[in-house]
């Protein structure tokens, strides 16, 4: 399993698109929003939690269709399916690799970008905490969507259509935690609820994903 994670990380670094692209996209979203809504600091502070979360979510979406598509095309997925590691383990390893390449950098970059959006000082810790706990769910749900569409020629758009509704609860609780935190309100409840969704997704979705991949390989 570690071998698979290391391979995916190495591929992400060598092909260049991995770390950089998602972060650049996140930056662009955060820069474009003030250009669209105006420079008013109070307005920006108000919408910052939502923008940061939506931006992170969209950046995460960007790389989903490559998770399995490349392995499917070059035959690796067939070979992994006949390897000793169960397919559920393959799914979990690829999810972790995807999170390390997208979710983790997004979490680390978010506080810097939050400065651009004038996020109130007390919101920063909540922002990092909510993204750290929420982006694994984004990766996991995205991997599930990717395994549904892996057999399709042009699955990218369909993948977004399938995955975005599934992101709703995570987005709501995540952004709500930051919003409350930024206003100095109690933010533990939404954060815990979101962590619950993450835990449930990570525990159960590998099985659904592996089932979907088996169907797609046959």
């Amino acid at each position, binding site marked *: 399993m570690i071998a698979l994670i290391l391979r995916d990380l190495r591929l992400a670094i060598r092909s260049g698109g991995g770390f950089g692209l998602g972060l650049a996209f996140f930056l662009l979203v955060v820069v474009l929003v003030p250009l669209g809504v105006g420079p008013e600091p109070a307005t920006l502070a108000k919408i910052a939690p939502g923008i940061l979360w939506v931006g992170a979510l969209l950046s995460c979406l960007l790389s989903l269709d490559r998770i399995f598509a490349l392995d499917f*095309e*070059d035959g*690796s997925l067939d070979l992994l399916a006949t390897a000793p*590691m169960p397919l559920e383990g393959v799914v979990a390893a690829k999810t972790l690799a995807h999170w390390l390449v997208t979710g983790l950098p997004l979490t680390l970059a978010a506080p810097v970008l939050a400065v651009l959006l004038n996020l109130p000082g007390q919101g920063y810790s909540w922002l990092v905490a909510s993204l750290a706990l929420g982006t694994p769910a984004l990766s996991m749900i995205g991997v599930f969507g990717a395994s549904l569409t892996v057999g399709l020629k042009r699955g990218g758009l369909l993948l977004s259509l399938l995955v975005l509704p599934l992101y709703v609860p995570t987005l709501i609780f995540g952004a709500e935690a930051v919003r409350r935190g930024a206003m100095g309100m109690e933010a533990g409840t939404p954060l815990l609820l979101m962590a619950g969704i993450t835990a449930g997704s990570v525990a159960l979705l590998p099985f659904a994903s592996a089932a979907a991949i088996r169907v797609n390989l046959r």
Partner: protein
Amino acid sequence: MQVQGVSCARGGVTVLDGVSFTLEPGQALVLRGPNGIGKTTLLRTVAGLQPAIAGKVSLPPETLAYAGHADGVKATLSVAENLAFWAAIHGQGGVDGALLAMNLGQLRDRAAKNLSAGQRRRLGLARLIVTGRPIWLLDEPTVSLDSDSVALFGAVLRGHLAEGGAALIATHIDLGLPEARVLDLTPYKARAPQAGQSRDAFAEAVE
């Protein structure tokens, strides 16, 4: 390994019906038949990648190494890295033996995207060695190999059989294995079902 009365389908259409054979350690079985008869489909069914419509494939678990049309080679990884990955996945150690056997020693640090089609294929076949698994399922293993490389692979295959391995091979090329048995799949071609005995429940759903 035993295959008993297996029927398999491609794209929802049954292509082969009632295929049976056994494969003992040290044996090789060559699958023959015209294009489209279902050699790949049969191999994928035996490999467990798709379910058999009927019949049974029985073999000890975790004994298969499948090599299909695609080699599972990552373009940005070097030859040695590609092999080391598959060795690690199968819990095996070094890759030097496999590199040597498929004459890839000099290419070991070259990125796979800079390999020729034949070199790439050799890398794909070297992967079989590092899996450490006894039963090889080979789907047209010699595609894009030159005659020297075919001979090289023939030797590797013979060595594998001598060590008690087995191989199920779909190929049209003589691999220099006189002892291999040949199974012609033509007689197993699925026939159109007679009216009234269709396998597909929908063909019977008359008004």
